[in-house]
């Protein structure tokens, strides 16, 4: 125990004192934020059809579409366009011009204008096109799904309205008929209604699960590297003359784990300080709630997941002689992790199906799958308890097993051990 503590302390202090740790701890959140914000910024920065030409047979029909397009921008229930609408008036975002010349030569000249960046695109909405139920949007880029939906909805709306008015309905009757019904999702959590939209749940799960995944991988590899370093620097022999392999291995794993925990605590505090004002300002993110159960289970599953995987990483470090060899073998470890990330979507869809319940019990999947289940829909406590128990048991077993391999492996320098050899070590080594 004492030796484990001494090794743990060294491992922790030597890592935390380095400049790399400081830089990484402070910069990683900045990089992460940049990674999350940049793609969003890039899509909004993408070329929007800012200058649009509507080619229609009559001025009035073109005007109808223009009004409809602009009004859909304002009243749309879509979260993102709502956000955009508060920032900018639709009239400022888009200049929509109506063109009643419906000749082929006009089409050609509009195309040229797109090429010369005079306009961003045009919609071909002549009576012929309407009769053929085929309206074309021509733009510098093929319209993205949002634009396509926006244009399509508007065109359909006015066409349907026109049809309805032909059938004798006035415009307000037509609008009432065409008003879309909005489906709102309400989630029941412990008998309480929460207005969490599916997307915010998904965000929580992805962020937390990715944090578990990345951290387990990152610190696991770090453990493997440091075992390899001790082997190649030959300090292992000195250490083994003072402490047992189990003490050395657990001390190292716990020390690196403590470093990881420190980093996550720093990040959480930093993230909290940075994000709180903006979270409060955004009603949509206000729903994102972390219940105490979620927080506790995050820490538990992170720690147990880390212990489970880093024990295996330490063993890989012990049986290999170079980092390249270690990297070749580590896919064995990464596989269950990747598999559990693949299971995320099915879990979100059916968190309490029998398959998912049992998959979430498997210790290698539990950190991600069980954690995701807890976030989506709190499973019965016995299931959480059982999965934790299974994990602790597996870790204990792995530590004993891996310590045996470790004991022999760390003294083998020349070559990588093969499977039969490892089996032999397991049998004979007294840990």
């Amino acid at each position, binding site marked *: 125990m004492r030796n484990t503590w001494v090794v743990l302390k060294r491992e922790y202090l030597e890592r935390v004192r380095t400049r790399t740790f400081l830089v990484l701890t402070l910069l990683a959140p900045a990089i992460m934020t940049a990674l999350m914000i940049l793609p969003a910024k890039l899509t909004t920065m993408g070329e929007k059809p800012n200058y649009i030409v509507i080619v229609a047979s009559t001025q009035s029909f073109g005007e109808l579409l223009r009004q409809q397009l602009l009004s859909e921008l304002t009243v749309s229930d879509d979260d993102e366009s709502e956000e955009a609408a508060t920032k900018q008036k639709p009239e400022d975002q888009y200049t929509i011009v109506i063109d009643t010349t419906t000749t082929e030569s006009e089409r050609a000249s509009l195309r040229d204008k797109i090429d010369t960046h005079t306009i961003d695109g045009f919609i071909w909405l002549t009576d012929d096109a309407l009769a053929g139920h085929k309206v074309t949007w021509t733009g510098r880029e093929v319209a993205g799904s949002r634009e396509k939906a926006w244009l399509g909805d508007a065109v359909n709306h006015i066409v349907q309205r026109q049809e309805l008015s032909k059938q004798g309905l006035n415009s307000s009757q037509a609008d009432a008929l065409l008003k879309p019904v909005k489906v709102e999702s309400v989630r029941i959590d412990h008998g309480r209604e929460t207005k969490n939209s599916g997307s915010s749940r998904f965000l929580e799960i992805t962020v937390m699960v990715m944090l578990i995944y990345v951290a387990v991988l990152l610190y696991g590899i770090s453990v493997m590297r440091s075992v390899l370093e001790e082997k190649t620097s030959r300090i292992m*022999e000195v250490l083994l003359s003072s*402490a047992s392999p189990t003490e050395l291995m657990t001390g190292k794993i716990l020390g690196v784990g403590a470093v990881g925990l420190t980093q996550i605590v720093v990040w959480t505090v930093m993230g909290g300080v940075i994000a709180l004002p903006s979270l409060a300002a955004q009603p949509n993110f206000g729903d994102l709630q972390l219940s105490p159960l979620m927080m506790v289970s995050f820490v538990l599953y992170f720690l147990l997941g880390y212990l489970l995987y880093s024990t295996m990483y330490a063993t890989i470090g012990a049986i290999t002689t170079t980092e390249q060899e270690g990297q070749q073998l580590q896919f064995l470890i990464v596989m269950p992790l990747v598999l559990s990330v693949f299971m995320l979507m099915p879990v979100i869809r059916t968190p309490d199906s029998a398959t998912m319940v049992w998959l979430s019990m498997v210790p290698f999947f539990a950190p991600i799958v069980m954690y995701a289940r807890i976030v989506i829909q709190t499973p019965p406590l016995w299931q959480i308890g059982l999965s934790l128990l299974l994990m602790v048991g597996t870790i204990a077993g792995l530590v004993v097993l891996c310590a045996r391999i470790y004991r022999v492996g760390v*003294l083998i320098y020349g070559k990588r051990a093969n499977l039969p050899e490892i089996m032999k070590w397991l049998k004979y080594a007294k840990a």
Partner: protein
Amino acid sequence: MSTLQSPPAPKPVSTQHSASAHTVELQNVRKCYDEFVAVADLTLSIKPGGIYGLLGPNGAGKTSTIRMIMGITVPDAGQITVFGEPLNRAHMDQFGYLPEERGLYKKMKVLDHLVFLGQLKGLSAAEALKRASAWCEKFELSAWTSKKIEELSKGMQQKVQFIAAVLHDPKLIIMDEPFTGLDPANAVVLKDVLLEMAKAGKTILLSTHRMDQVERLCQSICLINHGHAVLEGDLSQIKARYGRHNVQIKYDGDPSFLEEKSLVQSFNDYGNYVEARLAPGADSQDLLRLASSKARLHKFEVMEPSLEEIFIDVVGKSNA
């Protein structure tokens, strides 16, 4: 644990264990790695106090033997007893180990490193710090204590490694080739420290293939070849067993006594002196009387066989 001053001052041989208890005893110890037999059937005993030499050509099984004594590896067969008890983990804190392959954390600072290793051997952080500083002073490392290991020269790293091995004042100190990589001046410092510790009652196991070192430092030796002990025991007794057949003579006058075939088997004139090999069964005293009657003698010395001669002889025989 006794709080012995570090570096330890000479003091009388410790009588903590009964006189009969050997510091280390190996009985029919065997260790194989796959097909390769590293140690075949080794029996040896190391008496408390003094320097014990573990000798042998490369690959003879020295390091494997040491690892088993240290408890780093477990023998496949046989018994290891230390301080009169079967080897167990609790004994580890009584061992100090300088491995042949030096290993230190390159990025760690010298003093931090020594304190860490001292703590692993059961010292408190404060005590380890105190002792490490004293040792660094003795080895002229004081100016380097806050430098990283990688900034040190090979020789300095070697000294740090040595300090790490003796910091916790172990009863048994195992040194695997301790002198390699040291310049002559530092080698002398290290030799003096080892002798001082031996006088203070420590048992030192010195593993090397350098005959001259063993000849000068060790009281007892074990010569290993192919995993077997081919020669074991008190160094002077071993030499005595090999007999004294060579005589070094410096003289003026009549050299005819060298031609006496019943006494001299052969001789070699080196100019300043002559080395003669006695005939089988001949008494060196007869040769002395004969020589003094013929010539004026400045020197007449019966020579011990060198360990190197014995080594080559024994290894040659056991390989044959």
